């Protein structure tokens, strides 16, 4: 950093530059979040609305009720399965894409990453159309004679996981490709020259080096899957509630905002906890190697 620029000598200029951002973020991020946190401590009844009592009753209710536990468990299950599926499909695909040559690589990159630009609602609608009992999958299965009557696909966890994987897959591919890009292209040759087979090279040299990318991608995919709303709402229906759709219901159907706020806060805490925790763990592990 040099000090030739005059305005750098004025000590308040960085604060002045940052002021709009600070105002916006304090006024429209921290304040609403704080207000929601306070709301989560309040009580509610259908006839009187939100009451000015402050206690942990909502949290106690959530933790003592097996119903909420089931929904939290389902959310975690869906998020984990989605993450695993995204790894199993996304990581190899990223590797395959990296090995492609022009012009195929550019073309398939568009195919793999382009869906990011398409609205989640549209993409999920596609899966709803595929999964429906008159959808393409069932029609194909029946035409092939594999099943006699339509298989129930809509409103199942399986369908939610598949659609979520489709929605979040690009993040995994991007993340893995970033690490693969940094990979020394001669490293595979080095392994081969030492007598390792292609498979051994993949297993012992390439995959271990993809791990940081897979981990970073998993954190993103997990966090987004755990808090996804549109896809579970459309594909999961009412019976297959996850935290996000439950929060939506509490706010926009049941009217119990304090309870909804408490659920949202817990989701927030869980997502931040898992991401920050995983990041810290990963960093501690990789710092040894990469710093």
């Amino acid at each position: 950093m040099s000090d030739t620029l005059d305005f750098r000598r004025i000590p308040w200029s960085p604060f002045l530059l940052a002021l709009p951002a600070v105002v916006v973020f304090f006024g429209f991020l921290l304040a609403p979040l704080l207000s929601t946190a306070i709301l989560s401590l309040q009580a509610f009844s259908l006839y009187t609305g939100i009451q000015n009592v402050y206690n942990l009753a909502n949290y106690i209710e959530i933790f003592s009720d097996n119903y909420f536990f089931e929904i939290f468990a389902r959310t975690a299950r869906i998020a984990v399965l989605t993450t695993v599926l995204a790894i199993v499909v996304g990581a190899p695909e990223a590797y395959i894409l990296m090995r492609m040559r022009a012009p195929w690589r550019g073309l398939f990159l568009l195919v793999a990453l382009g869906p990011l630009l398409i609205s989640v609602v549209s993409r999920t609608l596609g899966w709803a159309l595929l999964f429906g009992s008159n959808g393409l999958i069932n029609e194909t299965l029946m035409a092939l004679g594999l099943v006699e009557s339509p298989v129930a696909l809509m409103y199942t966890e399986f369908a939610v996981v598949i659609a979520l994987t489709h929605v979040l897959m690009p993040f995994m591919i991007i993340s893995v490709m970033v690490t693969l890009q940094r990979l020394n292209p001669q490293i595979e040759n080095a392994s081969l020259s030492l007598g390792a087979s292609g498979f051994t090279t993949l297993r012992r040299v390439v995959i271990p080096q993809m791990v940081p990318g897979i981990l970073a991608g998993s954190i993103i995919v997990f966090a987004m899957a755990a808090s996804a709303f549109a896809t579970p709402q459309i594909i999961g229906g009412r019976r297959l509630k996850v935290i996000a759709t439950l929060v939506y219901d509490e706010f926009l159907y049941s009217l119990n905002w304090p309870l909804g706020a408490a659920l949202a806060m817990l989701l927030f805490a869980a997502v931040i906890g898992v991401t920050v925790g995983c990041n810290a763990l990963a960093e501690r592990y990789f710092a040894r190697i990469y710093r």
Partner: protein
Amino acid sequence: MTRSNAATNTGHAYLELASLTKRYGQITVVDSLTLDVRKGEFLSLLGPSGCGKTTTLQMIGGFVEPTSGNIRLQDRDLVRTPPSKRGLGMVFQSYALFPHMTAAQNVAYGLEVRRVGRAECEERVARALDLVGLAKFGDRYPRRMSGGQQQRVALARALVIEPSILLLDEPLSNLDASLREEMQVELRRIQQVTGTTTILVTHDQNEAMALSDRIVVMRAGQVEQIGRPEQVYEHPQTDFVAQFLGKTNLVSASVRTVNGVKEIVIGDQSFACDTALPEGPVRIAIRPEKMRLASSGIPGIVKNRVFQGTLWLLEITSEHGTILVQQPNVGTPPPRIGSACHLDLDGRDIHTFGTGV
């Protein structure tokens, strides 16, 4: 001895490259290259970037498939052998160390994939690390090592598998000048200790000369000259070799016989020379360090002088063009810029390339 690579045709070849060719579309990168490598020798492929030296090494290593031609190692066909089965050790320009493994794990890798027993493996890894002077660094990860240390790990990793040939792809180009010299000495020592047949690819003629038993000078995919370092330096067979290996002065001259004595005529000056030279106009090359200032000889004017510590480099303007002269620094400063001078030389230090202009 007119062709210095005549020697390569004698004795039993260890590695044979026969009419090796690599084309990418219309571009020929390596053009029917034929070369024999002897067991235990240190051979350098020297040339400017794009001359095909790295591609040649990659073909030997198995990472580039030849368009045509043969590679044989002790009568074993290498072209049809996958790289992992060739048993060659390779040190890459970027070292290509496995970043997620420690130095010792990197070195052990080649032994592990060969299923060498644990005890033996540990012992050989320790010995290899000791050989490269890193006995105490086995637990370090590559990112925490200096360039020189990484280089040594890469070397140990390639050597520990006891390769039939060690391939070095510009291994020193990422090191700074002083470290590079240190590693050159080290590399030579290690090669002599292990006796591993080594092929080095480099664009640095000093490195090639310092390390090699023989140098293969390459240009545009073809071999320009093969020989011992001093042979190639002292007796370049082409303009290109003369100019690529150190500074050289190229001058038009002619050869004649006067009183049964061969002499070479440069302008109005003549110098006794090698009797083998054919008569007629020739193009000659002479190294700057073989020229000296004298009281008589080719006249010129000092155009510039550069102090280089152990020596002075003078640029002299003459009727034959600018001529470079190196003068050892013996305490007396050379003539000032603008002063007139004369250049003398020994006719036997001259090399000629066919007929000149």
